[in-house]
Every structure is written in C-alpha cells, then in structure tokens.
C-alpha cells in the first residue's frame, strides 16, 4: 500500500507531532515498508478468533478493589515535575483570546 507524506502529515497531526517535510517523506517510506511486511497477517483466516487484548490468567487476576479513596501523590510533588507551574496549577500558553 502506498503511503504519501500527506498521509503521514495527517497522522502526525492526530498524534500532535510537528514534523519537517524531510521527516514526513522518510516516515512515509518506513511506514510503507512496515505495512507491506505486516500485510502477511492477511494470509490467516481469523474469522471466529477472539482478539486478545490482554493476558488474562484465570483465577489469578487481581480482584477489583473497592472503590475507596486512598493516599495519592501530593499536589506539590506533582507540580514539582512540571516545566511551568504556579499557584497550585500547571501553566500553559493562553487558550482564550482577550
């Protein structure tokens, strides 16, 4: 399947990544090659096969805990990791025009 730089641009947009034209071209080529490779999955008839979304261990899975509040990370600890914080908040560029 052909993958164009424009398609990659669209995908990058969905993933919130700004990429240069050169990168778009390179990733289009990589993506095309990888998709051609994974195409072999279509050799398999999987009708009636359940998709495996996770590894379930019958009888050993962690039971659901009761929905009760427990200790969690203190706000100041969380804010300490932020590139820009103040007044108990994460700061971001302005989103509303004055």
């Amino acid at each position, binding site marked *: 399947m052909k993958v164009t730089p424009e398609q*990659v641009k669209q*995908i*990058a947009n*969905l*993933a*919130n*990544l*700004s*990429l240069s034209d050169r*990168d778009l071209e390179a*990733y289009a080529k*990589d*993506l095309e*090659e*990888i998709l051609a*490779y*994974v195409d*072999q*999955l*279509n*050799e*398999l008839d*999987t009708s009636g*096969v*359940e*998709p*495996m*979304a*996770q*590894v379930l*261990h019958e009888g*050993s*899975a*962690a*039971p*659901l*805990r009761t929905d009760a509040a*427990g200790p969690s*990370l203190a706000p100041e*600890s*969380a804010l*300490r*990791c*932020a*590139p*820009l914080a103040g007044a108990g908040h*994460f700061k*971001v*560029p*302005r*989103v509303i025009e004055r």
Partner: protein
Amino acid sequence: MDGYRDLTIDSIRAGLREKRFTARELAEEALRRARDGNEASGTFLSFTPERAFAVAGRVDASVAAGKDIGPLAGVPVAVKDVIMTAGIKTTCASRALEDFVAPYDATAVKRLEKAGAVIVGKTNCDEFAMGSSNENSAFYPVRNPADPERVPGGSSGGSAAAVAYGYTPASLGSDTGGSIRQPASFCGAVGVMPTYGRVSRYGLVAFASSLDHIGPFSRTVRDSAHLLGTVAGGDPYDATAANMPAADFAGALSADVSGLKLGIPREYFGEGLDAAVGARIEAGIKRLERLGCQAVEISLPHTRYAIASYYLICTAEASSNLARYDGVRYSRRSEDSETLRDMYRNSRAEAFGPEVTRRIILGTYVLSAGYYDAYYKKAQEVRSLIARDFKQAFESVDAIVTPTSPFPAFKLGEKTSDPLQMYLSDIYTITGSLAGIAGMSVPCGASPEGLPIGMQILANHFEEQTMLNLGHAFELDGGFEG
C-alpha cells in the same frame, strides 16, 4: 576489592555476616568500577551514591547490631532508567524526560530496597525501551562487554552490560518484546522475563501495557531467582499484577530436572538462524538431555506472524501511552510556542527521537478510523492464535527451548538504517511476550569470534520455577559453556 566480580547474592550475605566486608564497601566498589568504566562502556545514565550509602548504612547497622539482614542485603544493583526512583532522575533515555525527577518509587524498587539491595545507578537503554540495540538512547550508546564495536542488545542494554562488565552482580530491566532476554544473550548474562502479571509494573514508565514486564539480570540463575522472588507478588497499585503469593524461587531452586519434557519448536531452527548459534543451542539441548530431560520436536505454527502482530499491537499501545508527554505535567516543553496546540506539537517533536516518533506514527495509523479492524484487531486475533500455539504445546511439554536471538551481537550502526531489519531480530522472543508466558535467557557458549550466545527457556504461565530449575541445572552442569 579482590573477587568482587565473582560475588553472588549468597556470598555477599555470608561475607557481611562474617564481617569480611561491609555493605558500604561493596557500594563504593560498585560505584568506583561503574564510574571508571562508564566513559568507555556507556552503561549508566546516572549514579545514585547518596541513596546507595543510605541503604548500605542501614544494612551495616543491622549487621553490627546482630539483627537479621534482608535476603538481598548489601547487594549492589543497577536499575534501568525506565523504572522510577523517588528523588532521582528517571529519563527513559529520552530528551522528553531529560530533567524528570521521579516523585515516587516503583514497587519493584521499594521491594528491592526493603530486602536490603543497594541501588547504585540508573542504566542506559533504548528511548522509552523501544529498540533492540540500545542505539536509540538519546544520550549515548552502550558498548558490548565482549566487543566494544558491537551493541549490547536492547532495550535493556545497560542493565545487561552492568552485570556483564562486573559493575553490579544484578540489575533490573524491562522486557516488552525481548528487551531483557536479547541483551542478556548478547552480553552473556542471565536475564528473566517473568510471567505477565508476576511483577507489579507500578512505577515502570509504560511503553506497551499489555506486554510490559519488569525482570532481573544476573550472572547466575540463583541470583535472578533471588531478585525475582523479591520483586514478585500482587500490588494494590497495579491492577494487572496477579494476586498470587510471593514465591521463594531461590529457596526452591533444584538442579534435578530429570524427567522434564522439553519442546523444541522446529520453526525456531530454520532460515535466518546463524549456524554457530544453532550449533551451540543444539549442543545445549543435548546437555539438558544428559541431565535427564526428554527433548521432543514440537510445532508453534503461527511463529512467523509474531513480528507483524507484535509491531502493530506494541505501537498502537505506545502511541496511546506516549500521548501523556504533552509538555504540561512532566515532560520537556518547547520554548516560544504561541498556542497550546503548537506547544504540544513542538514539545513532542523536539522531545522524541526517530524510533519513538516512528512507532507513534505507526501506532496512530493502525488505530485510526478505517484501519483499526484491518490492522489492530487483526493483530490481536493473530495474537490469540500465537497464545493458543503455546497453550497446546504446554499440554505435552514442561518447557520450550530455543535460541534467544538468531545471531550474536551485531555491530553498532549495522541495522540502524533499516527499522524492519531491526524488528526482525526479535523473532524468537516476541512470541512468548505475546502469549504472556515466562521466558529467560541463559548463556550457552560463544560464537567463533567469542561473542556470547544465549539459550532461551520458555515456561507456561506462572511456571517460572521449572524454567529457573532448568537454567540452574544447565549452569551447574557446564558453567554455561555450551
């Protein structure tokens, strides 16, 4: 310190009790060796002397007071830099988290230190654990201890190297598609991927949540058994951590493996397998037969579809997990972006290296409207078939023995220009990851150039003891000489 390189967890414990050395001295020795070697080897991204000496001090105080010391007391340990350590940088070898200081400890780290282990540093790896050669580290590559021109494997290259260089007797890594087993085989160390759910991932920075594991590296199987027993067990902070009692894998270790039935899957010995690797593994299987095991040929018919299934699933999960690096809460922020949207886009583009970006793009693509069923769902259906292959095999065998990697360590730069070739190097480890079973790599001799070769032992869900016993018997029998 003479003999440091040969210390094991049991001999450290004995040495501390007999006052032949202190935990502080061991920590100093580990740090000295690791620091002296790091410029050439690239093994560590940071060192943690303050934390190491604090824990070592507690161990030494317990010894002096004649108190019981923990099972890992005084053992210098290295931890992969995707595992959180409170108050210490946890970078995931990414520019995105270059300055990130973890606000809490991973459960595995807490359990190690509670048992007396002394964490001396954070090891280099592929960025966000994505890679098979450690060349995707945003900072510097790791050199293979057997040949500095070769890669240590990945993604836990630094953790494998820390053990193989003799900096620490043991380390922690993470394995999503082979990231513990493959570097263990490339560096000549023991590396264990436990059953999915055996070890809590709380505090492991997520890459692909249905596939991520934490597991140990060491020079001996017994030492990996010690570490695994320490970090295993349910955890209220990780809903996927199986609610099973912790097992004393080291205490239960037995070299009597007679009567065990080993499956040898024919799909793992065909095209693409390096002749020298194949010969060493065949010889290894013969040795296990001499120890009383019965080897039978089996088939895992969907093996050839594993890489395609894996790279669709892991990239889909990665693209979701890595959405959190938005430049707002903890990851690097791009300067001078006018709008919030531009800030997200620029921060992420600046923060991620090429392989991480590639995987986010592939993962976003396969999850996007119109492609979800054709790629993501199809890959999950094939994953079911691969898991079924193993389920059927384990109805008639106790363990499965294969090469860990089709070839020994390759040269730096050899595969970097071709992402698909790099993915194909994980062929033998990815199947077990998809099925969620346990696997380990044990040293099995060397290639004619002297490069380590690893033998993979796979066992059914929660049957780590069988796997460890086989590795232990193999190690005692021939000193890993293949």
